[in-house]
């Protein structure tokens, strides 16, 4: 494993963080009264679009895994369609999980669904970019000792930290501080975002620190 790889990883991650920053600042030039807390749903949508766009761009530019060589057009189209279906399925699955966790069933449906969308953006989209619509590869990456590259390793870290962030984000909801960000699902989306950013920052550093111990089968 080379240090250049880690450097590339770091740059791509910095780009992702930058896209989240942009999503908080750019819309205020075009939209009146834009703020993360008050027009939260708008921000969720914009942030989700930005992060997805950056991930796709990075996928096309950096191409971290150069495995699939078959590049017929129909194959590509089915692949893209499959990715879209996977993404939607993950959104619905997460929505169901939130409802099971106690989110209201009939009220605030849009809020809950957009939370599912943003969490999918942080977790499913990178997986789809990196691993493609291949469930076996996903299971391999998210099981013990299954990662085969630093990309996959960082994917593991960011995904888990996003979920943990969203999980921790639910903690302040019952507190009686009566702050605007305690409203469902704002604290959870913010938690997921912070978790994602933290994962993006931590994973290159962690890989860099443990680069001696890390041995991947393919490298």
């Amino acid at each position, binding site marked *: 494993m080379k240090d250049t790889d880690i450097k590339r990883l770091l740059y791509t991650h910095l780009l992702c963080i930058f896209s989240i920053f942009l999503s908080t600042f750019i819309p205020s030039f075009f939209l009146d009264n834009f703020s993360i807390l008050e027009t939260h749903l708008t921000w969720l949508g914009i942030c989700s679009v930005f992060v997805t766009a950056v991930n796709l761009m990075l996928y096309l530019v950096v191409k971290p895994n150069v495995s699939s060589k078959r590049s017929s057009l129909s194959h590509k189209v089915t692949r893209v369609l499959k990715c879209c279906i996977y993404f939607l399925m993950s959104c619905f699955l997460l929505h169901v999980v939130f409802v*099971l*966790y*106690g989110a209201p069933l009939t009220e605030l449906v849009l809020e809950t669904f957009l939370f599912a969308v943003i969490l999918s953006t942080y977790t499913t989209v990178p997986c789809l970019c990196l691993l493609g619509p291949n469930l076996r590869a996903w*299971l391999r990456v998210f*099981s013990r000792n299954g990662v085969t590259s630093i990309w996959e390793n960082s994917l593991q870290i960011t995904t888990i930290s996003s979920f943990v962030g969203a999980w921790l984000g639910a903690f302040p909801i*019952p*507190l*009686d501080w009566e702050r605007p960000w305690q409203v469902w699902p704002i604290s959870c989306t913010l938690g997921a975002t912070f978790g994602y950013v933290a994962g993006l920052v931590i994973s290159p550093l962690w890989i860099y620190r443990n680069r001696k111990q890390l041995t991947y089968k393919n490298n």
Partner: protein
Amino acid sequence: MRLSSGAFAASCIAIEVVGVAIFLRGFFPAPVRSSAPTEQRAETPAPEPAAGASSNWTKLPPPLFSKVVIVLIDALRDDFVFGSKGVKYMPYISYLIEKGSSHGFVAEAKPPTVTMPRIKALMTGSLPGFVDVVRNLNSPALLEDNVIRQAKSAGKRMIFYGDETWVKLFPKHFIEYDGTTSFFVSDYTEVDNNVTRHLDEVLKRGDWDMLILHYLGLDHIGHISGPHSPLIGRKLSEMDSILMKIHTSLLAKERETLSPSLLIVCGDHGMSETGSHGASSTEEVSTPLILISSAFERKPGDSRHPKRVQQTDLAATLAIGLGLPIPKDNVGSLLFPVIEEKPMREQLRFLHLNTVQLSKLLQENVPSYEKDPGFEQFKMAERLHGNWVKLHLEENHSDILVGLGTKVLRQYLSALKTLSLSLSTQVAQYDIYSMVVGTAVVLENAAHPSSGWSEVDLLLLLGTVGHVLSLGASSFVEEEHQTWYFLVNTLCLALSQETCRSYFLGDDCEPQHHFHVEQGCEGVLTHTLQDSTVCNNFKPNRAGKGPSLSEAHGGCKWWTVLASPWLVLACCRMLRSLNQTGVQGAHRPDFSHWLTSSEHKVQLSGLAALSLLVIFMLVQRGCSLVSKAALALGLLGVFCYRAAIGNVLFPWQPDNKGISKGIVEARFVYVFVLGILFTGTKALLKSQVIAADFKTKTVGLWEIYSGLVLLAALLLRPHNLPVLAFSLLIQMIMTKFIWKPLRHDAAEITVMHYWFGQAFFYFQGNSNNIATIDISAGFIGLDAYMEVPATFLTVFGTYVGPVLWASHLVHFLSSEASSGSALSRACFCYALICSVPVATYIILVTSLRYHLFIWSVFSPKLLYEGMHLLITAVLCAVFTATDQTGRTKS
């Protein structure tokens, strides 16, 4: 010889219970009480102090007022009278306050701001401690010395109309009464009309000395629609016209008799911005207190900013006003403006009586009372008073007398203030010593078992630690159900992940898992799940044509195993919306309200019957034939009981004839409960004595478990029967598809049982608030209130969740014959996981003892924790006993 770890843990828990008991004894201070029995009537009033020459005035001073009318308006907040609402809707009272002969105060009520303790405070002048609230859930007669009792023994004739609580508190004290219940909160006109309808006649009659009216309508309006509802204004106008009627009638009477009368208007507690009460916000503790009498001087005072006094001050004032001895436990001080117009000698006499009573109380409650500044001031004032009396008796009408008199007066007033303050703070002081001892005992104990703790999942550990830490925040204590639901959900997701992983990836590193993954033809994943028996059967031909067969066998299991955590999650979600609990969610509409409303009786009956059926199906599988029949009859009895008391309907008898107390039906069920428990215990003992086969013991444990289930079915309200059914369902699912196939460790299973038990405690509608305890469970099958069975039934009804899950744990672990020490390890774990929160919570409460919410939030939780610990101790004893049974056998 080494004691088994389970027995060790059980004894530790027993010691811890003692520790918590010591702590509670210190934490909930005994209220300031006079030790003299109240029956003792011979006590003479304190004579007027005199230096040298003895005073001739030893009797109690005569009453100031011939008639007293107390109008208590429930939840009357200070701004309803003194604020803009008062000016708008209560013009007569506002006029009296501004122009008339009256004194207006803002009386501060001490939390808990609930009606009964407030009535006690008003009439005894003492501060009911928190324990009083717990002790007096049944509102028995007031035993302490109070104004009403004194008035009765002085031969005053009293009439009462209004809230029933008074009649319960002061039985046989009123010559005439009519109690209205505050049961139907939605009724706010009828309750007040029931009070007012007597008024004309009573006012005309005039053969009474004291009239007490307690109006509930305003409180009910507050509960329904809050303090800004338009209904409030209408109600206030109604109250104003009633007060005007009373006042004019009193004035007319006064013209005949020429002795002044007193009209008192007060509230027992205020109303928060949402319309409820009970806590300690400014809106809830501020109540108006208005004294109206022609004896008072008309003076245009600053009525916009009335003086703040304590609610307890009314008792002393009332006693003086009626010429009665001041109640012994009174901590309030006389409202001085009331006696301001009296001659100096009488003023001093009244103040002296009050200070003597307060200093007596101080002497009885504080060992070092002589150093108390209030007591010193009192001694000084008494001496000065003596001098003054001497001068007065010498007919010395000079300026010196007036000057000295004012000085004595000032001295008395400051003494009263200091004494009253030091007595009130006495109530809020903690017995630190016993708290420290209790904490030490609890801690010492929690520290011991932690050495034996090793192999529990990260989640289980983190969740437990997180829950313990969350107890430090009042909101998390109020909303503890959210914590448990969250943890249980996360646990289910983690289990789902574990099942997925062990199924799809085979997890070669964990050979104990029973999922064997076979990769058949390359590229295609063919997974088969094999039970251990299946595995053994097919081992020889597994490599060859085995897969197709075992796939067919395992196919259904494969799906059920993967789906089971999700099924449990779905069950939990449904239960969560059954009962909304906590503080923030309590007002939200939930399924149980819908069910219990009278127009949905049919649905409720259907659901209850269905739940009972499910309970029977799930429980009968492990029982012997006799117990099966008993269980079926018992569950039928439960339905009959609910039908008899009118909760549910029989399908063949849609209009129930009469509502009885259902004593026969309930006792019928009790017989079966005892029968099943008895057979279970017998089987257990048999398995120990004659070393019968292993199965007898398992069946015995299951029978004990099913007996408890039957008892729970009887005690839980019909809309909570689904909770019981779902609890059994989840136990079945978890046992069959998760714990057995995944072969969890005994410690892990114990922690999971504990978590589910806690979650079910809240699913049932409980919370960390005393008010949610279902006391009606204590009266099932009893004619009258019997303390021991009622307490036992209430406690069991409240802690159904933890108890049932723990007994399921015992059965599950002893049915798994794999390791002999599993049960004792489980006992160890269970004891630890229950004692750690208690120990931490005690430290937290000690450090937060001056927190604003200590009485409203932390103390009830402390009581719940103490009770839970006691139950845990009993459960651990059962664990150990079962374990010993197992040991002697093997």
